């Protein structure tokens, strides 16, 4: 009648904080690989001229339109330029644009959100209406409009992408700011005198850093996709600068004649880069705050 059920082994384990973190990281090995890829990409972009044996712009009519071989790992284009070299050099542009756009959007968005949240009233309303107006556009469409209006040089493309990303950060910071203000008012009710602005910010920053880091990482991926798509349709980076999207557009024309390496590899480069940013961003989100999964 009495059964002492030992349903499963009763091994009791206790892990140190370091071991616990290690366990958490091990579950996300793929993201660690992605992080490695990103570091590699950055190194590649920075060291591009020293890494590649060929000149990305120098034509070489003799070896035009060659499929991948030992000499040219990713083949050559119609002018005989080595594709691998061009892709490596193009990484500089794509990563630079992504970084520039993200940095610009982050700084602008954080300031806007902080001011709106702190001041409240009309300032807040104005900023929020502006943000709503920007968010009323699908971001790629707005970026198209901006580069079409301003003309497509690198700085304009960076600005266009940055503008479409500002709302994300502004809303995040504003939300935090409102929350902190609530808390501060409760405290201030008991103390005499005003709390200096500095203290409000000191409460604010630690809470904001994790979600901002997560968003920025993911935004880098989106920025790369945007600049590539803009360049693909001719609204982004223009030749002679090589950029992955533009290279794909060049390669598109050769699909019907079978030179597949021209469109394929730049696209792979985009995909690998964006994938890495996304994986790292997702893992950061899981590690820093599982509550943020709704974002």
């Amino acid at each position, binding site marked *: 009648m009495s059964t002492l059920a030992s349903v499963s082994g009763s091994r009791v384990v206790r892990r140190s904080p370091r071991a616990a973190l290690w366990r958490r990281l091990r579950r996300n090995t793929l993201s660690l690989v992605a992080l490695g890829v990103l570091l590699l990409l950055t190194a590649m972009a920075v060291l591009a001229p020293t890494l590649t044996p060929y000149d990305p712009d120098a034509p070489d009519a003799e070896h035009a339109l060659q499929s991948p071989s030992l000499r040219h790992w990713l083949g050559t284009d119609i002018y005989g330029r080595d594709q691998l070299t061009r892709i490596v050099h193009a990484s500089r542009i794509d990563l630079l644009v992504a970084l520039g756009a993200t940095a610009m959007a982050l700084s602008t968005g954080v300031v806007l959100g902080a001011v709106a949240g702190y001041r409240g009233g009309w300032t807040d309303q104005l900023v929020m209406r502006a943000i709503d107006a920007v968010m009323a556009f699908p971001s790629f469409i707005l970026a*198209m409009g901006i580069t079409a209006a301003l003309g497509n040089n690198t700085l304009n493309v960076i600005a266009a992408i940055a503008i479409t990303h500002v709302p994300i950060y502004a809303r995040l910071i504003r939300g935090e700011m409102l929350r902190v203000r609530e808390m501060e008012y409760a405290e201030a009710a008991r103390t005499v005198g005003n709390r200096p602005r500095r203290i409000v910010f000191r409460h604010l920053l630690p809470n904001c850093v994790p979600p901002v880091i997560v968003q920025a990482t993911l935004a880098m991926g989106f920025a790369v996709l945007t600049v590539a798509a803009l360049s693909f349709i001719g609204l982004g980076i223009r030749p002679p600068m090589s950029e992955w999207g533009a290279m794909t557009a060049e390669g*598109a024309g050769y*699909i019907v004649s079978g030179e597949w390496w021209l469109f394929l590899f730049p696209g792979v480069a985009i*995909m690998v880069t964006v994938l890495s940013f996304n994986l790292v961003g997702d893992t950061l989100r899981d590690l820093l705050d599982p509550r943020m999964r709704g974002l």
Partner: protein
Amino acid sequence: MLGWYFLKRVLLIVPTLFGVTVITFTLTYLLPGNPALVKAGPLATPEHIAEMERRMGLDRPVAVQYWRYLSGVLRGDLGESATTGRPVLQDLLQRVPATLELTLASLLVALGVGIPLGVLAAVRRDSWVDHVSRLLGVGGVAMPTFWTGLLVLYVFFYKLGLAPPPLGRLSAGASAPTAITGLYTVDALLTANWAALRSALAQLVLPALTLGFSVMAPLMRMVRATMLETLESDYIKAAWAAGLPRRTIVYGDALRNCLIPVITLIGVVFGFLMAGNVVVEIVFAWPGIGNYAVTSLMSKDSGPIQSFVLFVAVVYVVVNLAVDLAYGFVDPRIRLR
């Protein structure tokens, strides 16, 4: 009260739409070149240009120009296209059916695959279905849509010869069915025009798959996350404790509750669709509004693009409104008080 919910939502889009026109006006105002110059023509004298400027109100203060712009937009005047010589609005409306057909077909693909896969991945966590869906989700989001299109074109058209060449909505030699809705596939079906149906469908497959897949990836991730969250709710736990069968709990209660917020996701998905539309139309030479805007710009005709941007934004706002209203109707927590 549901009435208030509806009214509030409808009224809220007015300031948003105003903001949208301010932005597109700024973009138009910033366009390089002098529109008066373009309109006056290459043989115009400086006096002609000045006269044209005065007539177009380009010498007036910004606020007045904005007012002219806004009243023009409300009248339906979105400028003229230098390449077609016709009003931009007319050009856009003519091409909307093509974009609509592509959008709807892609939406069907995205919803039809994305929702079941997302739900299944959440229900059978850590199974092979979950891993496949996570792979597709993470991979699909990282793939540039234009590249997916080219890849699909290369594999199915060039290599396998299964798909027709990317010549637009109909293959060479085929003629369009009688226009009822403007959607070739629907019209062909309605008029029993099987030849046109075959041709239109064949041309639609690759672009719809491309756009559908690129939109399915983020949708599936969001559906999976929503379903996982739903499965952790208190009422689901209570349902388990009440001994209800698994089928009822998971595919009845949890699914039903999960699909309600998924309605709002459709608004987000629509944004992705409209963005992806542009590049897909370029890759497959699909004669839609995105194609029109971009190719006009390439021919130095800068009128259409900003009007295209405005058009898309307005549609996006309206679609989001419709989604919000649908949500309010479906969720009893909003429908009843």
